[in-house]
C-alpha cells in the first residue's frame, strides 16, 4: 500500500491501526488516508467494524496499536479538552440520526451552537434556518424527532452536524434503509455539501452504487484488512475475486454464504446426543 503519495494533502491519516474487541481482531494493522476536500468511502460487508473505525477516528475508542491523526493532531494523545476542541471541527452523522428526542428539530440543530457559542438567540435563529434550508427541511423546524421519517431525521442530523461549520463530516451508513427518493436526496446533499462547504467527507457504507456514484476514493475492508482501494472505476475493474463479489453482490464466492461451522452432516448426527445434554444444563439453571 502506498500511503506516502497522498499523505501530504490528507486531513485524516490512520497508521498501522489494530483494534480488537475481546478475542476478536476487528482491525489488523490497517492504514488509510483521507484527502482534504474529497469524499472517501470505506466499504465492506456488515460486521467488519466500519462504525468502529469512525469511533476510533472520533476518539471515542482507543486502538490497541497504531495511531490516528486528524489535521496534524494525534487523536489518542490529546487531552480531554483538546480532543473536545478537535471534535467541534468534526461532524458525525450517525446511522439513526441520534437526534435528541426531547427537543424539536429547531432546538436540535441549535443545540451545538447553544452549547459551544455565546451567540445571541437572533443569530442562532438565522444560522439554524440557514442549515435547515441547506438540507431542505426549513418547514419541519417545529416537528419532534419521533414525527420524522428516517430520511428526514438523517437530514436534520446532517444540518446539526454542519451547524458549527466543521472541516469534515463522517457519515455512518447514510443510505441504509432509505427509499429511493430520500436516498437520492441524501446522495445529492452529501455531494453538494462537500463541494459548497469545502468539507472532507468520510462515508462508511455498503451501498455499492450510491457510494460509488459520489466517492472520489474507495477503501474496501474485509475481516480487518484492506483488500482493495482506488477510485470507483479502479475498484469496479479490480482483479480481486473478493472485491468483485462485493461489488456485484454474488451470494457465494470468497466470502462464503455459510458462517464458519463444523461439517453439516456431522452436526446433524450429533444433535441427538447433544440435545439431551443441553436440556439437562438448562434444567440445572
Amino acid at each position: 500500500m502506498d500511503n506516502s503519495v497522498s499523505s501530504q494533502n490528507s486531513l485524516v491519516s490512520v497508521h498501522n491501526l489494530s483494534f480488537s474487541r475481546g478475542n476478536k481482531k476487528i482491525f489488523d494493522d490497517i492504514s488509510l488516508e483521507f484527502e482534504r476536500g474529497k469524499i472517501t468511502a470505506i466499504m465492506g460487508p456488515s460486521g467488519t467494524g466500519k462504525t468502529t473505525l469512525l469511533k476510533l477516528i472520533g476518539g471515542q475508542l482507543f486502538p490497541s496499536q497504531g495511531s490516528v491523526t486528524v489535521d496534524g493532531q494525534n487523536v489518542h494523545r490529546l487531552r480531554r479538552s483538546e480532543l473536545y476542541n478537535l471534535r467541534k471541527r468534526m461532524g458525525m452523522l450517525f446511522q439513526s440520526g441520534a437526534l435528541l428526542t426531547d427537543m424539536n428539530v429547531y432546538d436540535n440543530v441549535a443545540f451545538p451552537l447553544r452549547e459551544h457559542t455565546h451567540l445571541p438567540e437572533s443569530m442562532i435563529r438565522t444560522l439554524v434556518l440557514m442549515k435547515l434550508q441547506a438540507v431542505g427541511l426549513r418547514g419541519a423546524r417545529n416537528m419532534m424527532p419521533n414525527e420524522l421519517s428516517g430520511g428526514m431525521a438523517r437530514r436534520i442530523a446532517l444540518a446539526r452536524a454542519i451547524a458549527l461549520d466543521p472541516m469534515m463530516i463522517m457519515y455512518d451508513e447514510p443510505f441504509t434503509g432509505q427509499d429511493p427518493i430520500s436516498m437520492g436526496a441524501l446522495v445529492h446533499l452529501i455531494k453538494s455539501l462537500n463541494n459548497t462547504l469545502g468539507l472532507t467527507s468520510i462515508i462508511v457504507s455498503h451501498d455499492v452504487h450510491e457510494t460509488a456514484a459520489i466517492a472520489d476514493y474507495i477503501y474496501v475492508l474485509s475481516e480487518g484488512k484492506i483488500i482493495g482501494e482506488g477510485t470507483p472505476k479502479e475498484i469496479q475493474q479490480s482483479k480481486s475475486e473478493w472485491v468483485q463479489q462485493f461489488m456485484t453482490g454474488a451470494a457465494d464466492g470468497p466470502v462464503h454464504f455459510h458462517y464458519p461451522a463444523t461439517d453439516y452432516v456431522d452436526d446433524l448426527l450429533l444433535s441427538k446426543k447433544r440435545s439431551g445434554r443441553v436440556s439437562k444444563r438448562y434444567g440445572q439453571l
Partner: protein
Amino acid sequence: MMQLLQYLGRTTRASFTKLGRGTFFLLHTLAGLGSILPRPRLILNQMYSVGVLSFLIITISGLFVGMVLGLQGYYILSDFGAEETLGVMVAASLVRELGPVVTALLFAGRAGSALTAEIGLMKATEQLSGMEMMAVDPIKRIISPRFLAGFLSMPLLAALFSMIGILGGLMVGVGLLGVDEGAYWSQMQASMDFHDDIVNGVIKSIVFGFVATWIALFEGYDTIPTSEGVSRATTRTVVNSAFSILGLDFILTALMFGDN
C-alpha cells in the same frame, strides 16, 4: 463446587468493577455540577420531570399512609387509654421512618426507573454518543442536571409526604374517631424534637435522594444498549435502590437514634 467458587469469584469481581465505575461516574457527575449551576433552565426542566411528576403519587400515598396510621394507632393506643398521644405516634413514625423511606421507595419506582429508561434509551439510540461527537460531555449536559434535580426534589417530596400524612392522621383520628384536636397537636409538639426528629428525618431523605438518583442514573448510563438491556437496567434500578434505601435506613437509624 469449583463452579460455585468460580461463579462467586466472577460475581464478586464484577460487582467490584461496577462499584468502581459507579464511583467514577459519580465523581464525574459531581464535577459536572459546576458547569450546570449557571444554567438553571436545565435543572428546572429536570425538576419538572423528577419532582412535579412524582408529586401526585407522593401526596396520595402520604395521605393514605397517614390515615392508616391514624386508624391503627388509635386502636392500639386506646387499649392503653392513651389516645391523646396519637399525634405523637403518627408524627414520629412519619417523620423518622415512613416519610423518608416510603418516599424514597416511591421515588425510585416513579422517578428513578424513568431516569434509567430515559438515559438507557438515549444510549441505545446513540444520543449520548452523538453528543460526545458534538464535543458535548453527556455526563455534564445530561446526567448532572438530573442528579441535582433528584437530589433537591427528594427532601421536598419527603417533607410533603410527612406533612400530608400527619394531616391524614388528623383527619381520621380527630375527624372520625374523636381524638381531641388540641391534644393531637400539643402532644406531638411536646415530644417531637426539632433536631433529633425533624433534622434527622430530613438528613435521611437527602441521603436517600442522593443514593436513589445516583443508582438510577448510573444504571441508565451503564446499560447494555439494547431494548432488553434497558428493561433489565430499569428493574435493577428499582431493586438496587430499594435494597440500598432500606439498608442505609437501618444504619442511619442506628447512628441517629442509637443513644436514646
